[in-house]
């Protein structure tokens, strides 16, 4: 029974994807979306049941579907394990996917590639399920690659949009953004593969239990190497610096895609990897500290860029990047269950934020510039409430979910004695509050800055709003389950408790963080509540420009990496491929042609000549026979 649930949870998205794919070339049909959502809901129900089962019995459920590779010493099965960590991810993924599918029925209703969208979306969910449910690193990698491909398909969903210059659109075009995402992921995957190779070479198996059992016996530098390599893979998937530019460009895709992939699921796969492989990272403290430091840096870095951005979705993307940094900070400092808790809570409110942004975009006819919005709370009350709630959670205000999860991370930083990280995280919390509410106020409060004749904003369909409600509810109440979650998950993950020293200061720490958060909100209120006052001097100052252009990093990549690489590729194409390879092949053909031409002269049409040649052949054979007989 339990195995069947595992298979249902795993394969229902695949069935949904295949079903939708059948109508890929047809016109939009609503029932495709409905059936896809129903199938995903089935997957959610199965995951939830499994979660209850794991919670009550405390035991993991392992199934091995079939053997994949059995070659010599290499044995990799298609095996799945449902333990506390994976069932948490499964439930979260399937819930958010179901909600996003229902949302998409409403959001994509004007799009003519409606059916194709559901096919891709469900395929993505299937890959993600494979990723989290797998019981070996190879299956994880399959899911890893699968989500990468589906992400590419989905970001480049509107592939027919032409390229624009960087000034008009920093992401150039959906196709370009999709390629960038995929290529960056691929570069990181190289690191991941190296890590897998290192593990396999030294352990002889890629199964989680086998690898973790063998860790005490391995050399420190092998462990360090494997940890670094695996983290490089995680860096690509979770968009850590320097492989972070694709995440903001991925906003070229439809909003449901951003909500599902770039808030809740795919980008958290990197964190999931670190959490899953925690025995490995626990014994490599230098690598873990590096992870934590990098995470903190990214959190600060991304928040700084979100302070001045004008694009609705891009601000939310930066905030995702920032929160991922928080998760890595927690994981790097050893508080794996806290990282997982923040992952799940963040998924809920970030998805809610993105979906709300989608509502706004839908109402404003795909306008993204918040400088051109304003005063929408009069016409879009439910969306305003949702986004306001999500922003409050993001800012970390008691008693919403974000407070519990983010605060835990900040406390961890203090607990570990890494005060620099602690200060940076606290300041980032303040910045987070500021920019989220800047966005809320500029969009919903103040004067209306859009053209009333062109745009008539209206609220989204009722069923979509109802579908978004579970996320809102969870964003509010999830924090209260922190204790239960801790006991649940730490049966598998290592426990992490705050020291006595920290307990002493816990009220003070909480007060400091809340102060920064509330301060941020107040600052945003004062500046933006009445409307937008543009400050030319500020906007042209060096720092503002630096932040607005993402520290010119995309430009840097283009100049230093893309262009030289393109040049080298072209040289290789002309110099090597055309000149050498093609010439060789053509040369062989020419040689045969010419030799045939020369030998053609043998055909004189004169019988006597032919007879001469026959005699020559016979004599040659006889001589050869005699010679070999004499030698042999």
């Amino acid at each position: 029974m339990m195995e069947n649930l595992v298979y249902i949870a795993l394969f229902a998205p695949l069935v949904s994807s295949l079903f939708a794919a059948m109508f890929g070339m047809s016109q939009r049909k609503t029932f495709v979306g409905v059936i896809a959502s129903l199938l995903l809901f089935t997957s959610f129900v199965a995951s939830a049941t499994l979660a209850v089962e794991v919670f009550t019995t405390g035991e993991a459920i392992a199934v091995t579907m079939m053997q994949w590779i059995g070659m010599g010493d290499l044995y990799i099965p298609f095996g799945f394990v449902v333990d506390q960590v994976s069932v948490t991810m499964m439930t979260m993924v399937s819930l958010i996917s179901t909600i996003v599918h229902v949302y998409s029925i409403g959001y994509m209703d004007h799009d003519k590639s409606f059916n194709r969208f559901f096919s891709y979306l469900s395929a993505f969910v299937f890959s993600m399920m494979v990723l989290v449910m797998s019981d070996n690193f190879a299956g994880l990698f399959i899911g890893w690659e699968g989500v990468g491909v589906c992400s590419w398909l989905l970001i480049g969903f509107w592939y027919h949009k032409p390229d624009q210059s960087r000034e008009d659109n920093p992401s150039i075009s959906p196709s370009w953004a999709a390629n960038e995402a995929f290529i960056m992921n691929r570069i990181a995957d190289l690191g991941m593969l190296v890590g897998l190779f290192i593990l396999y070479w030294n352990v002889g198996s890629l199964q989680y239990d086998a690898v973790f059992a063998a860790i005490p016996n391995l050399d420190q530098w092998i462990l360090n190497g494997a940890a670094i390599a695996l983290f490089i893979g995680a860096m690509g998937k979770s968009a850590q610096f320097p492989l972070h530019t694709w995440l903001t460009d991925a906003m070229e895709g439809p909003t449901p895609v951003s909500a599902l992939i770039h808030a809740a699921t795919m980008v958290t796969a990197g964190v999931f990897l670190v959490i899953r492989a925690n025995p490995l990272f626990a014994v490599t403290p230098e690598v873990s500290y590096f992870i934590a430091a990098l995470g903190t840096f990214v959190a600060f870095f991304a928040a700084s860029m979100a302070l001045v951005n004008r694009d609705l979705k891009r601000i939310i993307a930066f905030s995702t990047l920032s929160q991922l940094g928080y998760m890595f900070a927690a994981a790097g400092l050893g508080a794996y269950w806290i990282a997982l808790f923040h992952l799940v809570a963040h998924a809920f409110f970030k998805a809610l934020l993105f979906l709300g942004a989608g509502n706004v975009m839908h109402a404003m006819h795909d306008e993204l510039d918040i400088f051109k919005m304003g005063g929408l709370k009069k016409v879009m009350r439910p969306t305003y409430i949702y986004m306001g709630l999500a922003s409050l959670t993001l800012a970390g205000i008691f008693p919403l979910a974000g407070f519990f999860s983010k605060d835990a991370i900040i406390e961890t930083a203090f607990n570990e004695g890494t005060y620099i990280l602690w200060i940076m995280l606290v300041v980032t919390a303040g910045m987070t509050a500021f920019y989220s509410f800047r966005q809320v106020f500029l969009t919903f409060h103040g004067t209306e800055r859009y053209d009333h004749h062109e745009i008539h904003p209206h609220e989204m369909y009722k069923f979509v709003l109802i579908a978004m409600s579970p996320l809102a509810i969870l964003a509010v109440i999830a924090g209260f389950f922190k204790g239960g979650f801790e006991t649940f998950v730490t049966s598998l993950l290592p426990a992490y408790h705050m020291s006595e020293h920290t307990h002493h200061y816990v009220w003070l720490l909480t007060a400091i963080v809340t102060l920064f958060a509330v301060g941020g909100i107040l600052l945003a209120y004062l500046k933006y509540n009445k409307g937008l006052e543009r400050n030319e001097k500020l906007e042209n100052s060096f720092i503002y420009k630096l932040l607005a252009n993402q520290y010119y990093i995309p430009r840097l990549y283009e100049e230093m990496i893309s262009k030289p690489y393109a040049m080298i590729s072209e040289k290789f194409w002309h110099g090597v491929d055309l000149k050498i390879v093609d010439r060789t092949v053509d040369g062989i053909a020419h040689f045969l042609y010419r030799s045939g031409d020369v030998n053609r002269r043998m055909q004189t049409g004169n019988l006597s000549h032919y007879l001469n040649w026959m005699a020559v052949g016979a004599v040659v054979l006889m001589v050869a026979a005699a010679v070999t007989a004499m030698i042999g």
Partner: protein
Amino acid sequence: MLMKTSKKRRWRIKEETVMENFLASLFTFQGFAFYLFSFLTIILFWITVMSNNVLYAMTSLASGMVLISGFFFILGADFLGVVQLIVYVGAVMALYSFAMMFFDATREIKEKNTSGAVVFVLGGLSALMLVLMFAAPIHSESIQALYPMHEGVGNAQDVGIVLFTKYLVPFEVAALMLLVAMIAGIILAGKKMDQSLTEMMDEDAGEDEILTQKDEK
């Protein structure tokens, strides 16, 4: 013979033994007949190949074939010798004679000078190689006769037994092939062979009653 001795010199057989062997065998009937026939055959075939006159070439060819049947008789293949005489000398040479009549044979054949060097080099080389190969001693321990000759039975009977039992299918097929060759020869050489003879007679018949009666039948 001189060639033979020089070849044998290469194989380092003493010249004396060779000459002795030669003279000894010359005085047996078989040996004498063999050497005579081979000498004559070689000369006659050389004339066939080198002569410019068709008549001379044909005559020497026919004579050579007669002598070859002589070879067969020495070797105890009586039936084969007789068949050689009847078929080759009798039929084939007759055919060639008719062909000679067809083409004007009194003219001297004027042939473009072939490069004698190439021809003689090739021919000489092949002769050399073949003779070398055949002059070497043959190791014959492992060779078994497929259809051994029966003692006390004449050669013709022996051949008959094998031909009509073991070689029956090739025999019948050869017969069919000869039939086909005959028809082919007739068609190729005859005049107006693409028209039916009976139809031609129909046109010419006219009032000839006997012919028409014959046709009706």
